[in-house]
């Protein structure tokens, strides 16, 4: 991945995964991924990283924090 083409690809991978890369550059990246197993594996694991982030559950709101917030925002009526 020290070849210029690999480094160029490396720099644009997130844009590619986000669908923000269009036209000839996107085609060139896809062609490179087909021919370079290391870059293809790197791309697959980066995609998995993004998927895991997107599925990360929210940090639960503790009950006492929720109660304090509700008290602070009074006079909103209780639901």
């Amino acid at each position, binding site marked *: 991945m020290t070849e210029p083409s690999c480094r160029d690809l*490396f720099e644009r991978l997130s844009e590619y995964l986000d669908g923000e890369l269009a036209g000839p550059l996107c085609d060139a990246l896809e062609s490179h991924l087909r021919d370079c197993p290391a870059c293809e594996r790197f791309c697959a694991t980066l995609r998995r990283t993004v998927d895991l982030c997107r599925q990360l559950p929210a940090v639960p*709101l503790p009950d006492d924090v929720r109660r304090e917030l509700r008290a602070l925002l009074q006079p909103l009526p209780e639901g």
Partner: protein
Amino acid sequence: MSERKAELPDQILGAARDGDPGALRALIEHYQERVYSFASRMCRSREDAKDVLQDTLLSAVRALRSFRGEGSFTTWMFRIAANACRKMRRRGKFEPERELSLDEFLPQPGHDGFPEVVDWSETPDTSLARDELRRALEDAITALPEAYRAVLLLRDVEGLSTEGTAQALDLTPQAVKTRLHRARLAVRDRLAATVARP
């Protein structure tokens, strides 16, 4: 571009801006966990996250009428939350900033001249593996420098668009893309190390 997570319905937002108590309550219910979650991962402290949550929702409720609808309401809310986190930082509770360089994540050539990249994208989908990956992911996000963590949390975890993230953090869209990519690379590196561990 629309945000990936559900927006507050316009009808509720409009009623909340007119001071309707039920709509205000719905607005708070809609955002309180997301804002707390973002603050918790930004501040890395339960107490600071609580302060940021209170500060954000109080400021938002007070300033509701100033929301002009030029961007999404979620972006507007996270802009307030990000500013509240910055205020925490100015109080000296956060570490000094550190830059992430692209080159530190370039895979190094192995003995045959080709980079050795392990493919862990198809890890077993068991609950144990999921829990371990989730813990490793939380640790990896927590370890990111703040400027990169904010971008990754808003883009990938909270689902804001590039433009929305740029508005929330006072950055250009290009700066969001650059920081997001480096943040993802850093997180990927940490996950790879966890998955490859015997």
